[in-house]
């Protein structure tokens, strides 16, 4: 909401002082100043000029020569690049020596040999608007009889002013008007707020002879106020009004539309005008729409209505407008209009909100109705103002006013406990101090003893209805900065959950292992899941920002491969990446939300499967995971002969190995990618090994090397398990140090060489003991796995 200082002062003349200080008061009241500008400060030297002649430039197509009367008695020649002027037009003329808002100084100069003694100005050059297209034509905007040479500020009735652009919360419909802002600011400054009122003599037949209005649905329309105007002005608005509208960002259109906008900006009440001659039967009925009805709105669009939408119907019960949202084309006023019905109504905010949202129609008017317009005396004040402005411009007004009532909000009186307000705010205000704050912004307050008060909530505060709402008003007027700062004393020890601590540990381990943490967006393109070998069953977005990001991922694989490809494309070579992020699996039966889980993925480009297994081992050790096994399985997206399922404590928790080369190709990745993905949540919330102390032996170990010939279908892990099982607790370390195929080893087998360390906690092992356990290892491993000792 934009407001001008001069306009605010018409409601509270006491508003005065340094604009910056006023900005601070506005912000502290919750009317946050987004921008403050000093306006109407026209550069000295810009005057009204009259175009006397227009001639082509002899040597330039894009410039014309303009003779301008600047009031000095002589004629100036100006070279001008715009062609929207006609002889006789009044235009802004910047004389030689003028410093423009841009800093440009107008000099006497020659363009292609022709003298230019000044500049005709566009809106943007004078900082008066955004129009850069042509020269401002002022014929209709200056007071009658204004002579060339008059300083432009004087001719346009402009005076230096302050313009604030305020951010207004959805709970403050009242502050979407100059009057509402003035009320708050006056209270904040402690000066009087004195809203004017207007009255205008009426003439001709009474309104009751012109139109009949009934509210059929009282839950839709709380109040319908109407007056009838005759001979409404059809031209443009007077300059003072046009200037104010422009200052507040509203483009002047024509007299009646401008009055409607002016009253809305000034006092907060939207209005609608009907060409009474086109309202069938001169009858207005306010009701809800029926399914199947439709109406052509002012913008020419045919709009289908649904039950629940509020509508205005005419004597034939045909819809002629959508209540509070947009009027209908059939009763729009035009140059032939004589009699006009002006409507000012109070609409039920949820009803208007739903209709505006469903039709995707938002306007300044519907915004105010959605937030709750004023239902009290202000409706009449606004009507009085509308009539006064129209009559001032030549209209006549019929005697009498329609004032139909439906259901209006009941706002009081509300019992407010001072102790409760203080306990919420942490203040020690008396009931009387609270009453003072509330009265300053128009609340009615009756004291109900020392500890309570009865507050009547004003009709312009639809959103305000409870004791808590009242507390906010007290806090606002008391000043948030005047509330003493304390801290709660009731909180116990804070901390991260075991899961959150472990997740940090996972990150630390991976960063230590040289991996960079990535955070790709969790959406993928349609088909991206299938491209990495996964089921194309991702949940889709209804309104994606980008069609290439319209599916929720079910795996971290697409994002990680995308990151690998991005780095390869940017010549970063091979990378080690990881991500901890959510995946969104299909909705479980009987539930509404997806099966959302936190996964961990590690992608090592240019590396082979064992590198990913090494990362898994590192994590398993760091997290003390029990019994991590690799189980052969068909895994989507994975290299069929270089990957395995990760099984933790007997449960499948993910995949490790390499990404399928065909998937890599489809994703634009070159080389191999070693890959690990686990369901981090399940793993971290699953069983863990307790780290119990085992004394370290003080006695020397005996190391024994054994090489077995192992058939290809027997995994090394099986051999290792057999060794451990056969050696028992004397075996303290097993290390595979060689894997060999070739001469001396039969086809279909390989030789695996292990170094076994035997050690007892309480003695030095004898040669006999070592020999015994060695033999047991050989025998048992052969028996369990079919491996044979390599001689």
């Amino acid at each position: 909401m934009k407001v001008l200082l001069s306009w605010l002062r018409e409601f509270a003349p006491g508003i005065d002082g340094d604009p910056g200080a006023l900005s601070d008061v506005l912000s502290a009241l919750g009317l946050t100043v987004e921008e403050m500008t000093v306006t109407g400060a026209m550069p000295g030297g810009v005057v009204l000029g009259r175009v006397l002649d227009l001639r082509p430039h002899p040597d330039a197509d894009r410039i014309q020569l303009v003779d301008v009367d600047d009031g000095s008695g002589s004629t100036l020649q100006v070279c001008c690049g715009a062609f929207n002027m006609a002889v006789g037009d009044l235009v802004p003329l910047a004389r030689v020596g003028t410093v423009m808002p841009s800093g440009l100084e107008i000099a006497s100069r020659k363009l292609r040999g022709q003298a230019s003694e000044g500049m005709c100005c566009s809106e943007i050059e004078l900082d008066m608007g955004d129009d850069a297209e042509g020269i401002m034509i002022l014929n209709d905007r200056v007071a009658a009889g204004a002579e060339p040479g008059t300083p432009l500020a004087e001719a346009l009735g402009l005076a230096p002013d302050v313009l604030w652009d305020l951010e207004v919360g959805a709970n403050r419909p009242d502050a979407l008007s100059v009057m509402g802002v003035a009320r708050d600011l006056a209270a904040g400054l402690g000066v009087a707020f004195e809203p004017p009122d207007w009255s205008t003599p009426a003439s001709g037949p009474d309104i009751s002879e012109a139109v009949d209005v009934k509210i059929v649905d009282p839950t839709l329309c709380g109040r319908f106020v109407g007056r009838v105007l005759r001979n409404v002005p059809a031209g443009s608005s007077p300059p003072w009004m046009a200037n104010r509208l422009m200052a507040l960002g509203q483009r002047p259109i024509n007299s009646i539309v401008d009055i409607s906008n002016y009253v809305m900006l000034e006092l907060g009440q939207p209005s609608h005008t009907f060409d009474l001659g086109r309202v069938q039967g001169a009858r207005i009925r306010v009701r809800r729409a029926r399914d199947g009805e439709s109406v052509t709105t002012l913008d020419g669009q045919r709009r289908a209505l649904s039950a629940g939408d509020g509508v205005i119907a005419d004597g034939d019960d045909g819809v002629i407008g959508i209540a509070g949202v947009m009027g209908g084309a059939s009763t729009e006023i035009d140059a032939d209009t004589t009699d006009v019905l002006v409507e000012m109504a109070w609409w039920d905010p949820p009803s208007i909100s739903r209709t505006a949202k469903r039709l995707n129609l938002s306007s300044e008017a519907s915004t105010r109705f959605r937030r709750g317009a004023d239902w009290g005396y202000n409706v009449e004040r606004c009507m009085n103002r509308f009539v006064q402005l129209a009559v001032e411009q030549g209209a006549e007004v019929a005697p009498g006013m329609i004032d139909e009532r439906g259901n209006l909000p009941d706002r009081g009186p509300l019992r407010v406990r001072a102790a409760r307000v203080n306990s919420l705010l942490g203040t020690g205000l008396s009931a009387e101090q609270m009453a003072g704050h509330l009265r300053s912004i128009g609340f009615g307050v009756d004291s109900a003893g020392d500890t309570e008060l009865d507050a009547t909530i004003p009709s312009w505060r639809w959103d305000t209805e409870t004791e808590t709402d009242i507390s906010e008003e007290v806090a606002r007027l008391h000043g948030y900065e005047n509330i003493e700062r304390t801290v709660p004393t009731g909180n116990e020890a804070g901390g991260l959950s075991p899961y959150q601590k472990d997740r940090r540990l996972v990150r630390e381990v991976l960063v230590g292992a040289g991996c960079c943490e990535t955070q790709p967006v969790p959406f993928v393109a349609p088909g991206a899941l299938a491209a990495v070998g996964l089921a194309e069953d991702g949940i889709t977005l209804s309104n994606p920002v980008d069609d290439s990001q319209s599916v929720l991922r079910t795996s971290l694989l697409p994002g990680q491969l995308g990151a690998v490809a991005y780095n390869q494309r940017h010549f970063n070579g091979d990378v080690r990446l990881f991500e901890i992020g959510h995946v969104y699996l299909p909705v479980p039966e009987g539930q509404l939300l997806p099966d959302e889980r936190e996964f961990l993925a590690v992608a090592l480009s240019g590396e082979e499967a064992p590198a990913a297994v090494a990362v898994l081992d590192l994590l398993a050790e760091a997290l003390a995971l029990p019994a991590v096994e690799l189980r052969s399985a068909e895994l989507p997206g994975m290299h069929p002969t270089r990957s395995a399922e990760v099984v933790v404590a007997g449960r499948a928790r993910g995949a490790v190995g390499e990404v399928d080369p065909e998937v890599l190709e489809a994703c634009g990745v070159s080389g191999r990618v070693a890959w690990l993905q686990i369901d981090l949540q399940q793993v971290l919330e699953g069983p863990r090994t307790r780290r119990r102390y085992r004394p370290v032996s003080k006695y020397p170990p005996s190391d024994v090397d054994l090489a077995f010939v192992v058939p290809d279908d027997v995994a090394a892990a099986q051999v290792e398990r057999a060794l451990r099982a056969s050696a028992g607790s004397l075996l303290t370390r097993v290390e595979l140090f060689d894997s060999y195929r070739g001469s001396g080893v039969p086809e279909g087998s390989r030789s695996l060489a292990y170094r076994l360390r035997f050690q007892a906690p309480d003695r030095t092992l004898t040669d006999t003991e070592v020999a015994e356990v060695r033999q047991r290892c050989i025998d048992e491993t052969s028996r369990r796995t079919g491996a044979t000792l390599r001689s």
Partner: protein
Amino acid sequence: MTEGYEQAYERAAADAEERLAAAADIDAVAGIERELLGRRSVLTEAKRRLGDLDPGERAAAGRRLNAARERVEASVAAARIRLSASGRADRYAAERLDLTERLPQTAPLRRGHFHPVTQARDRLEDVFVGMGYTVEEGPEVESAWYNFEALNIPDWHPARGSFDTIFVNLGQPEEVMLRSHTSPVQIRVMENRKPPIYIVAPGRTFRADTADATHLPAFNQIEGLAVDRNITMGDLAGTIDEFVRAFFGREVKSRLRPSYFPFTEPSAEFDISRPDGSWLELGGCGMVHPNVLSNCGIDPEEWQGFAFGFGIDRLAVMRHEIDDIREFVNNDVRFLGQF
């Protein structure tokens, strides 16, 4: 005896000196030492035979023998010093390395990097943990109840439009969505737990914003919630202030300005001071709306609370002066490696 004992001692000593001077390494020195001073050496043998001499000769011979031994011992020591000094020097010279030559195969250690947003999030969590808060999380795909309704934002509410919510194709139209703020976690915690509650909830949030230098459709927020018997707005202002000083530095000030959110009343924006004296808007906060407490089965007459929330990504942007937020999701290692 063809040679007098005196000559024998002299010759042995001189011979030792000569050989020790020529010795090439410590092992050779040790050999000569063993030969001349060991149990079967000439000098030891001579000492054993001193008893065979006439008593008159014995004392003089003993003195000469001792002198010879001392000469040999001194020569051995000198040879050891000579050889060990040059041996050390040669060895060190041979092992010389230029430590500024950093070949990848000789220095294979390379750490990875935490994402800058994670770093900001961890720092925030640490500050709030230090202030006595626990960290809670919730799903990123939410229902209208948690994202809006329980937060006092009914379907017709004008504030709904301002969230630019991304909806998903589940349930009724606009019934399921990517959460547009972290506030749903407040509801989930309050539904499941009785006060007192002191939590922060960091996490990913979503808005239908086209990605540009300052916007991403997926970004991160942190939410705070305290519900207890006597929580006041003064507690809110004091908590914000304590957080701001702990996170940004003791010299940074905070202020609250009235604002509007459907789920808090009174509501405020909070700003932090900049070195030039101006204020920077950081986030929103307020006293938990009684309707929100009631929606979670908490009696607003018995319990009061405050809540606050702000963006995490922006803190990382400010800290590292990042000029294009899209780098957060590009995952270029040249970017990630800077933090």
